[in-house]
């Protein structure tokens, strides 16, 4: 049995934050989970995927976050407990459904896991999704450690059922990707099937219905406020005269700072874990018990502003500070030192932090940016397109491994916004300029948000080339399946869709499928697309080599070597491809045979035919 499924209350395990969330869902008797993967949330669906069949509930990787949200909503209105998980920008995609499900409500617990990414470890922005609670009117919970990631998930289902509203649990990268001890609780009965009881004048949100529903949501706010005032996750800790308000992972930094600065008896902490609605009564009581307040929250001054507003309405005039000069930044995640030093300075204490060693004379170190892997088919396709379109064409890109094509020497990405935007922005670029446009999008991203944009391009007769980089998996987030993947080898029955059939079905007239590892053919496909007047699509089809290795479909090819007698040092292999298997040793080009997977692209690029397969 999967360890996360064990009915063993009291058992303690070191769990990844994301695994703790899954355990919480299991303890709460989840019946359906849905997700589109996205760092730092991806291990949640991956863990569900590893155990849902054994557990007997329904799980799916949905095509995008909005659909995943709607799938979970369908279950929750039918009386089945559901969870939907996504990264912060996924919430933007899901938000259309979120805003109105808040009106409609649910009949069984529905928990929305939202993973923010302060410091942008793996994201295109660091938006603060606490605003989504305010925007939608839905309750929000924020855990502080692995144990709470599990416990609060269970609590979120209960709150959701009490209020008949979806509940958002907001995590940040540090919480998703920490490992901490988690003590298991009891498992509730699982109910994977429910019944949808018709009530169209509640569920169909025509204006006459929604006018009433909005009123109900406002009433539910008051009920949620009551729960927040009495929640065990909102607490005043200590009774000092200096107040600190905090949430999420910052709570740990605050508590450690109190120990490091030895100021335990001087401080009172207001910890907000049920962070929306803000418990106004508790906040007022706290404000009246302290002389001044420091708000420790990553990203936007959400709590700071709302607490100031509460203070104003209650006629409380004490200093309440958070963001600003000499205080906290609105940028990036915090760490123990930042929090300790800011607390020390705000309350006029001397800083006890150890002194960092002098690093002024450390030589400048070579960068180690993430890079397309050795043998990555994206590199080969970028090479082929660049040979034909050169550096003048504009290359809109999308979200995935291939975004790394922005790095020199490939330099094949000019604008990248969000999932699907390569195609949408290509439409605008094509309409507004006379430049050549070649957009790149991955297979999973194409299904996620590329199809409506491609319909737009066909319908409005935009003139550009789209390259769909089909590596047969959702590579960047950890090789999850997508609608174009045959999932039978994973033991899951789904229907596999052909990207080519989809593209042709949308009315694209010039479509070519190539294997990018066949360099001449790939270049010919790019040339034909360039000469074609109108919208053209190239599907570049070759498995991600990491995925191929994982599913035992890796190509059986020998690694290559450079024949130093033939090499004339054009350096095209290094300068144009920059495969990480290649390196220079005293001016000689070499191939690391441990890294080379034998894709043979460099051998086709070499003008001297000096790159050859190693003999056995």
């Amino acid at each position, binding site marked *: 049995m999967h360890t996360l499924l064990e009915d063993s209350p009291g058992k*303690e*395990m*070191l769990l*990844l934050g994301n695994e703790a969330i899954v355990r919480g869902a299991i303890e709460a008797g989840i019946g359906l989970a849905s997700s589109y993967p996205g*760092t*730092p949330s*991806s*291990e949640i669906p991956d863990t569900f995927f590893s155990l849902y069949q054994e557990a007997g509930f329904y799980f799916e990787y949905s095509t995008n976050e909005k659909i995943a949200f709607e799938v979970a909503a369908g279950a929750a209105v039918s009386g089945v407990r559901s969870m939907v998980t996504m990264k912060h920008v996924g919430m933007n995609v899901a938000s259309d459904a979120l805003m109105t499900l808040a009106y409609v409500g649910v009949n069984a617990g529905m928990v929305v896991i939202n993973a923010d990414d302060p410091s942008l*470890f*793996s994201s295109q922005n660091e938006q603060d999704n606490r605003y989504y609670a305010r925007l939608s009117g839905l309750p929000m919970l924020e855990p502080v*450690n692995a144990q709470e990631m599990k416990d609060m998930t269970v609590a979120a289902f209960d709150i959701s059922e009490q209020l008949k509203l979806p509940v958002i649990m907001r995590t940040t*990268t*540090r919480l998703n*990707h*920490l*490992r*901490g*001890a988690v003590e298991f609780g009891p498992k509730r009965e699982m109910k994977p099937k429910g019944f949808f009881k018709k009530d169209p004048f509640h569920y169909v949100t025509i204006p006459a219905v929604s006018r009433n529903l909005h009123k109900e949501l406002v009433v539910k706010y008051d009920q949620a406020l009551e729960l927040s005032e009495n929640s065990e996750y909102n607490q005043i800790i200590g009774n000092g005269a200096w107040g600190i308000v905090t949430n999420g*992972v910052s709570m*740990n*930094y605050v508590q*450690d700072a109190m*120990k490091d600065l030895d100021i335990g008896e001087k401080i009172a902490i207001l910890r907000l874990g049920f962070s929306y609605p803000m418990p106004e009564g508790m906040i007022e009581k706290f404000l009246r018990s302290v002389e001044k307040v420091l708000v420790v929250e990553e990203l936007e001054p959400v709590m700071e502003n709302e607490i100031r507003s509460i203070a104003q309405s209650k006629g409380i005039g004490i200093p309440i500070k958070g963001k600003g000069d000499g205080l906290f930044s609105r940028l990036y995640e915090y*760490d*123990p*030192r*930042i929090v300790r030093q800011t607390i020390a300075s705000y309350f006029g204490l001397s800083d006890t*932090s*150890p*002194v*960092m*060693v*002098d*690093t002024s*004379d*450390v*030589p*400048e*170190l*070579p*960068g*180690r*940016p*993430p*890079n*397309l*892997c050795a043998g990555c088919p994206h590199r080969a396709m970028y090479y082929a397109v660049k040979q034909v379109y050169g550096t003048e064409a504009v290359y809109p890109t999308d979200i995935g*491994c291939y975004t*790394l094509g922005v790095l*020199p*020497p490939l330099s094949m990405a000019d604008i990248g916004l969000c999932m699907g935007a390569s195609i949408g922005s290509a439409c605008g670029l094509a309409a507004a300029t006379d430049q050549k446009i070649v957009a790149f999008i991955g297979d999973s991203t194409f299904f996620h948000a590329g199809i409506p944009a491609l319909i737009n391009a066909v319908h409005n007769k935009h003139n550009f080339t789209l390259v769909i980089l089909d590596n047969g998996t959702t590579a*960047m987030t950890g090789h999850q399946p997508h609608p174009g993947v045959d999932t039978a080898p994973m033991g899951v029955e789904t229907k596999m869709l052909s990207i080519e059939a989809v593209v042709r079905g949308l009315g694209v007239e010039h479509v070519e499928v190539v294997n990018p590892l066949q360099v001449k053919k790939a270049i010919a496909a790019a040339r034909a697309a360039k000469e074609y007047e109108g919208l053209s699509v190239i599907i570049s089809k070759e498995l991600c080599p*990491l995925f191929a290795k994982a599913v035992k479909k890796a190509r059986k090819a020998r690694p290559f070597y450079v024949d130093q007698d033939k090499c004339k040092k054009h350096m095209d292999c*290094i*300068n144009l491809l*920059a495969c*990480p298997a*290649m*390196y*220079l040793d005293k001016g000689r080009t070499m191939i690391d045979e441990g890294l080379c997977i034998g894709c043979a692209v460099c051998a086709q690029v070499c003008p001297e035919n000096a790159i050859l397969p190693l003999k056995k």
Partner: protein
Amino acid sequence: METKRLVLVGVGGQGNILASRLVGEACVAAGIHAVVSEIHGMAQRGGIVETDVVIGDATSPIVSEGEADVLIGFEPSETLRSLNKCNENTVVITNVKPLPPFTVAIGQGIYPDIDEALALIKARVRSLISLNGDELAEKAGNLLSLNMVMLGALIGSGVIPLEEGALKETIARSTKQAFLESNLKAFDLGLSAARVG
């Protein structure tokens, strides 16, 4: 309990994340509070991997600049890059086998001289334990057991309150049985290298 803050740095594929997880699991099994922090995502694309392990009373999952009690570097230029995690009391344990990034191959940077790098680190911290982890891993019979060598060296340094036997039990429980023998041998080689140090 006194807090011990560990920073492990390396390159994607070197087994850093597993190493930090094993330390965390061994601590939990021994009843010692521990939090581990990982950064996923770009790791398998050849990027830098940092994991932090905080043992003892503290609950923060990460280690700030200047605050590591131990810095464990799986690759020497990455150890040097993370010198900002150290203070004068830090113990640094580093593998000396270089793994130059591809930027060096395309002329975008110069790989540092190892001896100079080690001297520079040694002059600033409490002690430096340097070993050829890749060589020891190979000697143990498995090139991929570098992380076990580094774990052995960590225990050998005597800085953290974790018994040799406790970590070995966790390795036996949580790593693949097929590699158990070479893993434990690699661990022992790292441990004695650090003790001789």
